[in-house]
């Protein structure tokens, strides 16, 4: 037993928490769009990809410092989110949800192809080497700690924004009844636009932190897109705390499953857990029992 409960187990658990931070950060914006206002952005991870390219060009090509470039990248993706809503989602708001899915699926391929043509197929890298934190016999990645902190702060900010502000309340209300909100004096078009820009900004925030850990290429979204959707669903649509918890549960299963068995089994177990939970708690991990 002592062979199992060693420092490496602790390291795997901590790494699971840090991976959870990355996944939670990714799930944050999608939860707002997909979970709260019930609009499907299947191309969410591709918006993150565009944000990563934005960071690359600003830092590597135009020589901006990382912390100066980051707000611009967030604004860029926020703008893309708003544009996506105006051009693709708004005309389809009253159409069956499958139409949104297909349309944003088309945007996914457009963005991948656009990135291939505009930026090329080369893998790109910011070339920033973050320091490593050594704690006892464990080594922790600063870039992941940053992502973890950003996810935590982002989750709290979005939570309070949704609960304590007029626009947040309107966003939550609009998801319950699109038609009635207009009759109550709410400018639904404006609310959708703000929410889309906010979702895009959160994707931009994720992009700023992912570029510290991952290579940038037109297909980087393939690694994150599906798992992000699963986390949002597992956490309960629109439930930010649930999404946060789901990200860490998922990440720990991947990390510990990968430590005790083959790495692939970690993912198999995580996806199996998702399927089982869909039977047991279809409304999400933290859903109240009705």
């Amino acid at each position: 037993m002592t062979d199992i409960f060693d420092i490496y187990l602790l390291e795997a658990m901590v790494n699971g928490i840090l991976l959870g931070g990355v996944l939670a950060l990714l799930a944050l914006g999608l939860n707002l769009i997909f979970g709260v206002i019930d609009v499907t952005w299947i191309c969410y991870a591709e918006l993150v990809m565009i944000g990563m390219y934005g960071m690359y060009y600003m830092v590597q090509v135009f020589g901006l410092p990382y912390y100066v470039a980051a707000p611009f990248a967030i604004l860029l993706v926020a703008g893309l989110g708003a544009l996506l809503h105006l051009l693709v989602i708004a005309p389809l708001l009253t159409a069956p949800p499958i139409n949104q899915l297909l349309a944003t699926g088309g945007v996914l391929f457009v963005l991948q192809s656009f990135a291939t043509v505009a930026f090329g197929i080369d893998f790109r890298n910011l070339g920033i080497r973050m320091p490593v934190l050594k704690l006892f016999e464990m080594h922790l990645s600063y870039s992941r700690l940053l992502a973890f902190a950003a996810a935590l702060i982002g989750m709290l900010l979005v939570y309070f924004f949704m609960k304590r502000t007029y626009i947040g309340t309107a966003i939550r209300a609009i998801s319950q009844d699109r038609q009635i909100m207009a009759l109550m004096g709410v400018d639904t078009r404006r609310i959708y636009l703000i929410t889309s820009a906010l979702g895009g900004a959160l994707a931009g925030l994720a992009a700023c932190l992912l570029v510290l850990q991952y290579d940038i290429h037109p297909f980087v979204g393939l690694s994150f897109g599906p798992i992000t959707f699963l986390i949002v669903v597992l956490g309960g649509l629109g439930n930010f705390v649930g999404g946060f918890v789901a990200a860490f549960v998922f990440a720990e299963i991947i990390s510990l499953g990968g430590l005790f068995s083959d790495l692939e089994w970690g993912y198999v177990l995580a996806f199996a857990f998702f399927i089982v939970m869909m039977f047991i708690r279809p409304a999400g991990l933290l859903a109240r029992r009705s």
Partner: protein
Amino acid sequence: MPVRKAARVLGGLMATVAVLGMAASAQAQEKKIKIGVIYDLTGPLAGGGSELQYTGAKIMLDSYAKKEVEGYKVEAVYADAQSKPDVAINEAIRLIEQEKVDMLLGFFSSAQCVPVAARWITTCISSAVLDNKNFKYIFRPQASGDQFGLIAMDFIANNSKEKLGKEPKDLRVAIIHEDGAYGVDVAKGNVAGAKKAGFNVVLKEGYAATAPDLSALVTKLKRAQPDVIFHTGYNPDITLLLRQAREQGLKFAALVGHGAGYGVYEKLKEGLGGDVNHFFNVDPISIWLANQKTMDPKLPPVIKMVGEEFDKAKPGVAIRSAHVGMAASNTYVFLTEVLPRAIKKYGGVDPEALRKAALEVDLPEGGTMLGFGVKFHGDGQMAGQNERSFPVVIQYIDDKSSVVWPKSQAQREAVLPLPAGSTYSNK
């Protein structure tokens, strides 16, 4: 996911495939051979080496576009497999049925080769492509995946005591690989080589190349404490693994990569910086590193031409990737050895003529730009495989790559173990 299944294979294998049922007589009347060329120009494999192979093949085919081979024009039709096996199959069908190509050449990923070959055609590098298939119209001039794994182990076994100070039985080795056909095949060669050398294999594990996190694998490596890591992967997963290895404090004496992502030095350097210094890579030799003194004298000018054309296509590249030369050399073998013989001796470019001509190719060592000779197995377990091909072990030292194994091709002594002070050094 395509990449997940894709065992990338390096190497520009070429498949000379004659396709049954083609309008051979019509083609003959036009006196041209139409060659379908399939590589990945988009998707993750493109940047992992496939696009470089495409460039190498295209340079060679372009150089023949204005010439004729025994009265036949050479016409190439290019297709993008998009890093997806299903697209590779569809494009192969399209080229054969609609474009009416006489043969197919290319494929970077074994994950594409295996299903395509199983249907009719083929090519590539994983042993599984040819193993026990007994294909008649498929030929692979370059080394197979398990040979990569074997030579890597052979190299370390021969340096274990002298450079690493350990008897092979005491040497702890880890074999990790992406879980597609290529990675699995190379790892099979690694395991066979480790068994032969008597190494202590402390970890063997595959992973999906698109996995967003490899920290659990790094933790397992730390726990296993290998002296040498044998790794087969693509470019994004290689940089992710090694970046996480640095962040988690993984230490070792040497790392041996096996082509694909490890063959594209520029990208490794961009992603890992100086950490890549003193890493080893197994690949067919770069045509620019091959020993020209023992080479057929007509080949060095061709190598020079390929280099000049590559520099025009990709200016400013510090180390020309071996991928370019693989595809160029394989295409050159077809255009100079197989095609003229098929036309002259067997009367055309139909499948049987190409097959007979391919089986008669008999080039000794030094007969190709890659240094090795060519003689294809006609039948048996590895029918279509070049029995004279071999990869080499190179080492990246201070932005230069040098062949360090086998001794017959070596340009310098290997630096082993990693010098003290290196990021991953366990000294």
